[in-house]
């Protein structure tokens, strides 16, 4: 029992009003699905059922795509400055209803309210603000007027940053003149459904934004629909490969943002205390449900013990619990399936010979939880050093020279992100030059900005989201 315990400080959920049953958002309004199948979306911190969600079938997807096609006819005639204004208005509404969205996100997905309030929602608004400003500047963005939108884009997003992933997809797509059919993740549809209400409120022309909820079958229907001119997918590498395969001979645009097993390299001349913070943030932020998580700690051997001591001490101050408690640092694991996967991989790691440290803390009796964990004494051949765990589990490897660090960091099929910690500027640049990763954080981690392009090398996917380069994901050069 602590000498000074923080009392509970619960963010009230009375600000949200969740319907018991939801349909789809097609042609500018909410509609009854053709599909008779529903699934339940559950709060992973309490296991309470929040709502019934439609599992969109072939006909639902078809309606949505057709609506988007019609919408494209209107949207392509809409002046760029008008497109900009719709997006600015959406940004403003998101800002106004930020608290409501944040609470809903935490309830549906399990992430701490501190994160959804201070990180997710501000980034969501910023993304709409940023891309609104490109809508009327496409002609100067890449020095050519020859770039055109694809038409109807099918977008499939994951459950780790539901509303933010929606913003990353929808804002640039609409700014560049495309129309959208979006399928949110099975376990986290609620903020997307609330977003659809905003589209109605700003009077976005019918068919410009369409939302079809469902599971993998729904996503499959969308990916295979002949009316789609481009697919944008964020999710697991295995599903990404399936999608790329399914595209086959169709001449459509494709961008994939897949998994990662990022190396966080700590050199012996790093500012150690801040490196500890960065490493903790890198893997425990959002319960480790982050594609670019720094899940492999690469420590220079001569600072191993000192660093691990500091790290374990710091991990012990992490607070696991009710996502709606403002003092919670680590929320719930998104689903039972994910929890089982994490548990099984950790057990495998222990059996392989890794030494496991887990923080001591009480876990709530209901819900899906995992204690922040750290593996030391790990060899690069163990599966926990290779496979993406997607949970609050950090694996440590050691290196002796900068060349070795780079070698180990690149020794993976993934290439999404990496971290480099050293106070020596030239070493940062030397290392960054040699890392096969799309995003490199030096002396920091998990920094995102709508203006900063994000995306991977190798099996972490292709295409970039954000920034001037992010526009290229939604524009094609007329041939």
């Amino acid at each position, binding site marked *: 029992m602590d000498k000074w315990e923080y009392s509970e400080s619960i963010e009230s959920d009375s600000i949200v009003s969740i319907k018991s049953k939801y349909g789809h958002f097609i042609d500018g309004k909410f509609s009854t699905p053709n599909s008779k199948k529903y699934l339940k979306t559950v709060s992973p911190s309490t296991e309470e059922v929040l709502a019934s969600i439609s599992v969109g079938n072939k006909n639902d997807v078809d309606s949505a795509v057709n609506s988007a096609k019609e919408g494209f006819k209107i949207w392509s005639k809409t002046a760029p400055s008008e497109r900009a204004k719709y997006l600015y208005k959406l940004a403003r509404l998101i800002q106004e209803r930020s608290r409501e969205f944040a609470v809903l996100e935490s309830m549906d997905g399990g992430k701490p309210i501190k994160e959804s309030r201070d990180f997710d929602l501000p980034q969501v608004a910023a993304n709409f603000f940023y891309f609104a400003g490109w809508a*009327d*500047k496409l002609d100067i963005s890449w020095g050519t007027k020859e770039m055109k939108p694809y038409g109807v884009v099918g977008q499939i997003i994951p459950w780790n940053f539901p509303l933010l992933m929606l913003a990353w997809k929808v804002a640039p797509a609409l700014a560049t003149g495309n129309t959208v059919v979006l399928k949110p993740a099975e376990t986290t549809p609620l903020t997307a459904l609330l977003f659809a209400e905003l589209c109605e409120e700003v009077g976005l022309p019918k068919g410009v934004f369409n939302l079809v909820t469902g599971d993998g079958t729904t996503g499959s229907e969308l990916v295979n629909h002949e009316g789609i001119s481009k697919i944008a997918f964020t999710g697991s590498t295995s599903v990404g490969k399936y999608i790329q395969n399914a595209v086959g001979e169709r001449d459509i645009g494709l961008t994939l943002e897949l998994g990662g097993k990022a190396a966080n390299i700590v050199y012996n001349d790093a500012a150690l205390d801040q490196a500890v913070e960065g490493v903790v943030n890198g893997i425990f932020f959002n319960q480790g449900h982050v594609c670019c998580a720094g899940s492999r700690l690469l420590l220079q051997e001569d600072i191993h013990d000192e660093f691990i001591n500091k790290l374990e001490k710091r991990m012990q101050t992490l607070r696991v619990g009710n996502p709606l408690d403002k003092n919670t640092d680590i929320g719930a694991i998104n689903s039972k399936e994910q929890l089982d996967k994490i548990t099984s991989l950790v057990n495998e790691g222990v059996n392989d010979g890794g030494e496991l440290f887990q923080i001591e803390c009480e876990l709530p009796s209901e819900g899906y939880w995992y204690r922040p964990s750290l593996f030391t004494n790990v060899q690069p051949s163990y599966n926990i050093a290779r496979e993406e765990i997607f949970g609050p589990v950090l694996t440590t490897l050691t290196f002796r020279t900068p060349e070795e660090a780079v070698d180990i960091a690149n020794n993976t099929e993934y290439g999404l992100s990496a971290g480099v910690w050293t106070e020596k500027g030239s070493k940062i640049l030397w290392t960054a030059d040699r890392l096969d990763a799309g995003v490199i954080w030096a002396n920091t981690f998990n920094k995102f900005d709508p203006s900063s392009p994000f995306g991977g090398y190798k099996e972490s996917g292709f295409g970039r989201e954000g920034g*001037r380069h992010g526009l290229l994901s939604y524009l094609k050069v007329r041939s």
Partner: protein
Amino acid sequence: MTEIKKTYKNYVDGKYVRSESGKTYTVELKSESYELPLTSKKDLRDAVTSSKKGFDSWNKLSQYNRTQIIYRLSEMLEGNRDSYVELLVDHGLTKSAANKDIDNAINTIVWYAGLADKWEQLTGNLNPVDGEFFNISHQEPLGVVFTLNSDEVSIDKLIRSFLPSLSIGCSVISFSEKNAVLSLKLAEDVNNSDLPSGSLNLLSGDFTKVFDDISRHVEINALASYKKLNKESLKTINENASTSVKRIFHLPSEDGLSSILPFIETKTVWHPKGR
């Protein structure tokens, strides 16, 4: 009831002020005439002091924040559309031309608002130098800019004379003459947009009375005239400017990306890459 007539004043450092000289000049419109401040050299010097502070405050804000502030100006204009239309009509425009002008002005503001956090992505870059070096050309705003508005009766044109430099981070002293009522009215909405004091100062007067002094003022980093100047003025301005190598722009482009290029200072940084 007796109608109360508005007094238009200069907008400097977030406040509405008369000329310290007490002098005014008359602008005659169709239904009304206004006495506007005849800005003196001292007024301008005070404005420059304000603009210098304003430059720091404007640049402390993130570019994202500046985008939102400029966008807010468009919201203000939209909200006060009717009063602008009335004023433009009083200047001699037809009602439909006035509305078109406000439409254009709003679209112009929205365009520059969205540029405020992107312009460096379009103008700066990494340079592929030979050797183990990282080399980046970072773009910075010039500093304090004095701009002269043309005489055209147009809110859009007025905005195009100060917003390019303002949107990339310069602080601006915007000077209008015959059509200054438009500028001083706009000051009200500028004030409501959360622009930091001193980042944009709006003044009225007679350029011929002040250009000699202003082109000599070392703390103004650039002078941009969106009004065609005669040869004698241009000669004097350039001669004065040469004493401190001030940047002078006569009729700069008002279109797209080229409209901001004059107001950028490029800073190139090198760093070795090595273990």
